[in-house]
């Protein structure tokens, strides 16, 4: 009996040791893993950045179940102490296509949104909070989707206009749940939105723009003459995942949905690869996206003219080096594109620049390299344009790319 017990103990010790060693090798960056560690941008997941009118750079990022906001007055060299947005921790989607969003108004008003993951797979709630005292305190977060079932409400986009109206748009699976309950099939998700005309204190009833959007790519929303424009990956037919755009016709209503890309990527898969857009003051939209159809693939840039016609899309980036996750920004007729590549050893950030509103492009330039980094994003303070890039080795970086 003693021998039996001894062997069992030995076996147990072996199992425990084995599982400890698993944990050890799983902890890639020990200092950044625990909720007991102080929150730091260095360890943050998927930050978003925006400049306010006073050249202050605001950031929102997730760490150990909290969304934090901090700022820098010297272009990202020194940051303020982070302020917690959600005081009660919750599961925050902050990886790749999902990240907390931040926009800043002109009256010390700051707005933050994120997706809270729920227990059931692929479900979430759209969360929102605001500060009306320049980021010292944030309101108790609210759920913006008015369908409170445990369903997919995720991949939100956030934008405000100069009047202080706050808009949110996201991918929503309430229709899909309903269809499946009735034994029917439903492709993808639906695109929903809501808005607030009292600076985020209350939101209107949710409205649907379209059924059958792709369900796992980021949505992008920008303002054109104070009204939202939304760009997203849609599903055409059974499984053709091309991009669509919708412009609002007044502050409450989305207009007609336009098909933007015709790459015909037919795939019953999650591309995890959403588009981006920059809206010029003259009404021209600069659009970029990724598709992977057999005969039409890689990164694309296209321009939507003031009269709602589209120029033929052009390919950019090195497809064989996995050019991916493009971002676009314009300042007048100057347009910048940034994206990510990988050469087998290092990730790199690339930039291409146009001086004539995207008609012709200068040669692509490599901006930075790292072993492992986030997506690159373009930000501007109105004077200069920067690329933000969070990497595992160097944390948050802000690189100027214009004079």
């Amino acid at each position: 009996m003693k021998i039996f017990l001894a062997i069992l103990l030995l076996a147990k010790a072996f199992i425990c040791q084995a599982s400890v060693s698993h944990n050890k090798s799983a902890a890639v960056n020990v200092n950044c893993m625990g909720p007991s560690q102080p929150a730091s941008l260095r360890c943050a997941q998927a930050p978003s950045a925006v400049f306010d009118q006073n050249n202050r750079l605001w950031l929102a990022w997730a760490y150990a179940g909290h969304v934090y906001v901090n700022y820098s007055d010297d272009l990202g060299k020194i940051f303020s102490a982070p302020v917690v947005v959600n005081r009660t921790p919750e599961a925050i989607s902050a990886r790749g296509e999902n990240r907390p969003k931040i926009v800043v108004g002109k009256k010390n008003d700051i707005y933050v949104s994120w997706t809270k993951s729920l227990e059931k797979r692929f479900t979430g709630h759209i969360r929102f909070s605001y500060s009306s005292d320049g980021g010292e305190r944030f309101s108790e977060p609210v759920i913006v989707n008015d369908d409170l079932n445990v369903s997919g409400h995720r991949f939100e986009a956030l934008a405000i206009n100069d009047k202080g109206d706050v808009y949110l748009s996201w991918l929503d699976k309430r229709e899909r749940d309903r269809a499946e309950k009735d034994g029917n099939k439903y492709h993808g998700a639906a695109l929903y939105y809501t808005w607030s005309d009292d600076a985020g204190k209350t939101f209107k009833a949710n409205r649907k723009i379209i059924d059958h959007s792709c369900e796992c790519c980021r949505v992008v929303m920008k303002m054109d003459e104070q009204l939202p424009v939304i760009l997203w990956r849609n599903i055409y037919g059974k499984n053709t995942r091309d991009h669509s755009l919708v412009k609002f016709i007044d502050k409450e209503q989305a207009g007609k949905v336009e098909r933007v890309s015709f790459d015909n990527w037919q795939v019953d898969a999650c591309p995890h690869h959403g588009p981006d857009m920059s809206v010029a003051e003259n009404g021209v939209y600069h659009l970029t996206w990724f598709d992977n159809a057999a005969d039409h693939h890689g990164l694309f840039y296209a321009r939507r003219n003031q009269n709602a016609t589209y120029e033929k899309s052009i390919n950019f980036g090195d497809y064989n080096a996995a050019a991916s996750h493009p971002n676009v920004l314009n300042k007048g007729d100057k347009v910048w594109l940034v994206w990510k590549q990988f050469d087998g050893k290092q990730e790199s950030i690339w930039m291409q620049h146009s001086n004539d509103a995207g008609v012709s492009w200068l040669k692509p330039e490599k901006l930075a390299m790292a072993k492992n980094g986030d997506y690159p994003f373009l930000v501007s303070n109105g004077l200069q344009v920067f690329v933000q890039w969070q990497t595992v080795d160097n944390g948050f970086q802000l690189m100027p790319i214009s004079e």
Partner: protein
Amino acid sequence: MKKIKLFYSVLVWALVFISGAHAVQQPSHFKLDSYQQILQQNKQQSFLMVLWSIDCAPCMKELKVLGEFHQQYPQHKLVLVSTDSMSQSNEITQLIAQYGLKNVNQWVFDDSFQHLRYSIDPGWYGELPRSYFYKQDHSRLAVSGKLHQQQLIQFFAQDIKNSGLKTL
């Protein structure tokens, strides 16, 4: 003598228990050399390697198809590679068990996504699910998106023409 017999039988049971616990509980760490290791382990045999993630809705449909296929044809070799991280092992294992795939060879990404993606296929962009059908000589066919059971059956029956599979 009796004691020694007892010792050995308990030892055997303990070892079975340990190895069993491992096979079910922990997927292997997929590192930069793991892809070559998988090829080595499956020398001279056809097999299907599927990349998936707990964050990918179509992957759940894929796991269902694979689970049903595996119950029916356990002799055909499947390899599952999750592109999540080791910290999500519990969730991964739970899902795998739910779809009846716990006896299938399991891996989880345990290095930079880009590096691991490249080590498998520089031409794969990360869309999921992503499947690779390996013939006996290890020439492969890549498919993005959900598979149908008929494709699996036809592939393993070496009827590639009828399976509608083509390289991407």
